[in-house]
């Protein structure tokens, strides 16, 4: 999955979690929690949405790899 694909997926997921945030303001290497003012509940809901969309189980220990769009793209690449 490339960055554009993950960006589209995250934007779609965020529409149901935090519709007022603008993903376009976040760079690929920025921590989304900081860039978009996501709290731990928002972030957990985002992980749930990505897990459902990709069909991948995401252990809690892997959460730090999903803090940035670049990290997400790499994580879901295989």
């Amino acid at each position, binding site marked *: 999955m490339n960055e554009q694909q993950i960006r589209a997926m995250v934007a779609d997921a965020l529409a149901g*979690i*935090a*519709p*007022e*945030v*603008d993903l376009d303001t976040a760079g690929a290497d920025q921590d989304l*929690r*900081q860039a978009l*003012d996501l*709290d*731990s*509940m928002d972030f*957990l*809901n985002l*992980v*749930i949405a990505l*897990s459902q969309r990709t069909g991948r*189980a*995401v*252990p*809690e220990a892997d959460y730090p790899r999903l803090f940035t769009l670049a990290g997400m793209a790499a994580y879901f690449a295989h």
Partner: protein
Amino acid sequence: MPSLGPDMESARVIEWLVKPGDTLHRGDVIVVVETDKGAIEIEVFEDAVVEALIAPLDAELVVGAVMARLRVAGESGTDARAVAATERVEPTVSSPAPAVAPAPPSAVIAQDSVGTPAASSAVASAGHRRASPAARKRAAGLGVDLAGVSGSGPGGAVLLADLAAVSAPRVKRAGGFDAAAMRRVIGAAMARSKREIPHYYLGQKISMASALRWLRQANESRTVEARLLPAVLLLRAVGLALRRTPTLNGFYENGAFRAGDGIHIGWAVALRGGGLVAPAIHDVDKKSLDELMTGLRDVVMRARGGALRGSELVDATVTVTSLGERGADTVLPIIHPPQVAMIGFGRVVERPWAVAGQVEVQPVIGVSLAADHRVSDGHLGSQLLADIERLLNAPETL
């Protein structure tokens, strides 16, 4: 119109969810009103039948104004009651005429012809498009007229999903509330608190090592959907601890303390774009961690989506704020009147921590209490914080 907070003066009727003749059960949402805290769903607190809707759509009603006439189960039609729908506001008998809200002629007709087809059509002909509160808010934010949107919900109601097609420009303002109006409400409530409540403050550092270890293990065997957040352990610990210090759970009104009818914790939710609302999570001490996680997720989503219920705004017997993983490490809370206590948690930080004569690095959280000196003293407050620490150190008991 029920009072949904000490500083609420009026609210606007934006959607009736019932019509004359409908049978209602305690807890049913009957109307959505627009307040400074966003769109709020108002519930009915008795089993009843709708006789007439008095308040027209878009009417700005002062607190106490008659909104609808309901016949409570067991009453005859001539003894119908006008109900303002929260427990705080006693239902008042509205004879001979509803006093405060100027009702338009159509509503008066509806009132006089209770239960007849004419009454129903009078309401239905108000030209109102059915829509979910979330969809209504989104449409208002987008400047979209609901009349031009085809709805896929019950009775053709417009749902959030129906707006996807017309909502191409992304909504950038925080949805569901007027930030300036909310700021005024917060300012008024906090000024009253600082003016009237003699606060005392206590603080304590608590190791989260046991709690977070337990949580990590619990979450390992859970699917991502069923995982718990640390906030739920904090919520549950406060709920259980308050059982032993009931004078920190309730209200100070008319010169006296009144204990809460349960441990209903107002959970402070920050709204993106500024603002704060603390919807009640009911009976925290009686719910499992899973139930609390579901409840917490639900109120946080609805607080931000602008669809809280009236009871959630008035039922809280105490408030908890947790600054979360990017907050400061200490918060000194300001009590939300007429409550008598507020508990705050800072961010979890790694700190040197002495255990049996050895220094270890452990995750540590700062918990603080602000409480009303007219009702309790620091001795009791210290007991609450000690109980919270004891519970967080034994997470398997939560």
